[in-house]
């Protein structure tokens, strides 16, 4: 009986959080990005993407506010650093949303050799004929690229 109740609580929390957008890339939710790690009893465990990402504080506040709005003030939020967040945790749905938003998603399973990535796929024309302009972009998680076919610059989510 309690196992069923726990399962449904977890599902309810994940449903609520699937509507909490990332503050800097609002097309994806905190669940899509793999920031939400697990629900343990009445504790929700989250992990930061980059250690210095200023969005980390905003994300926790947004999650807190969403839970409070759903009358879940008793759910505690715990932050863990280990194991460290990786772009491999971004869901398939999240990757599709990023692409539609104009951000090339990171290749799945490429995090281990993040410094030698395959060419990014242009989110506009699909060309692989692209180049990196800067490994550091507008946010810690993105690099700046350019398509050599359609000539459009675009962001790529860095493999991490």
């Amino acid at each position, binding site marked *: 009986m309690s196992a069923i109740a726990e399962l449904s609580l977890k599902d309810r929390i994940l449903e609520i959080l699937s509507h909490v957008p990332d503050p800097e890339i609002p097309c994806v939710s905190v669940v899509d990005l793999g920031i939400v790690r697990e629900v343990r009893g009445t504790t929700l465990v989250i992990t930061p993407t*980059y250690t*210095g*990402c200023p969005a980390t504080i905003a994300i926790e506040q947004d999650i807190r506010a969403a839970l409070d709005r759903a009358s879940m003030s008793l759910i505690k939020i715990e932050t863990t650093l*280990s*194991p460290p967040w990786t772009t491999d945790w971004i869901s398939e749905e999240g990757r599709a949303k990023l692409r539609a938003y104009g951000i090339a998603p990171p290749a799945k399973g490429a995090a281990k050799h993040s410094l030698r990535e395959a060419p990014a796929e242009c989110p506009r024309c699909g060309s692989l004929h692209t180049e990196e302009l800067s490994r550091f972009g507008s946010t810690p998680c993105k690099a700046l690229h350019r398509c050599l076919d359609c000539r459009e610059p675009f962001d790529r989510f860095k493999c991490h």
Partner: protein
Amino acid sequence: MPGDDTLFHHALRLGDDALVLGQRLSEWCGHAPMLEVDLALANIALDLLGQATHFLNLAGEIEDEGRDADALAFRRDVLDFRNCLLVEQPNGDFAQTIARQFLFSNWQELLMREIATAPEPRLSAIGAKAVKEIAYHAKFASEWVVRLGDGTEESRSRMIAGLDWMWRFVDELFDPKDGAASLRAEWDARIARTLSDAALEMPKPRRGAMGGRAGHHSEHLGHLLTEMQFMQRAYPGATW
């Protein structure tokens, strides 16, 4: 407990290194030679400040006297900082900044890789996360060393001068008292490889400047702290 005191100082050193270099790099914000470099230096500074927050919070937790990362960053005077001398050196020109980053990030990457396997779980968690970020910093700095060293006469002479300025602070990074001496051989090999790609020679060995780990800092750190700590000195305890 002596064990805890050792761990406290270990976390403090790591946190102070990241904090001071992060603050130094942020001085470039809006002043870098081009937009991409401005973004890169600001991103690296941000990563370092994030790491500093984790390490200093851990130090405060171990010390157990109610100090958190903010208290340690903003309410200590210069003699209580335990960062290495390298990170507090002035930015100078772009080549000098790159020289400092090149020497430091390559060292920090090796160090964090080791710390990621440390028995203390709170320490290893930060190390495992940081090492992924630092790999980018080391690559960025190494690429610029090659570009400047193997560039024009002007960029080459500036790169040599930058490395020359920073080189005397290298030995302190491998001081056996802090347990990082075992990383020297791999670090030397990395540095030599990049310098060879840059058509530069290894700087001549010289007597290293030491003392940062004991709180004996160069004049530069005090100036950095007056700017960084201004708000808390002028309005103690201010929050917003």
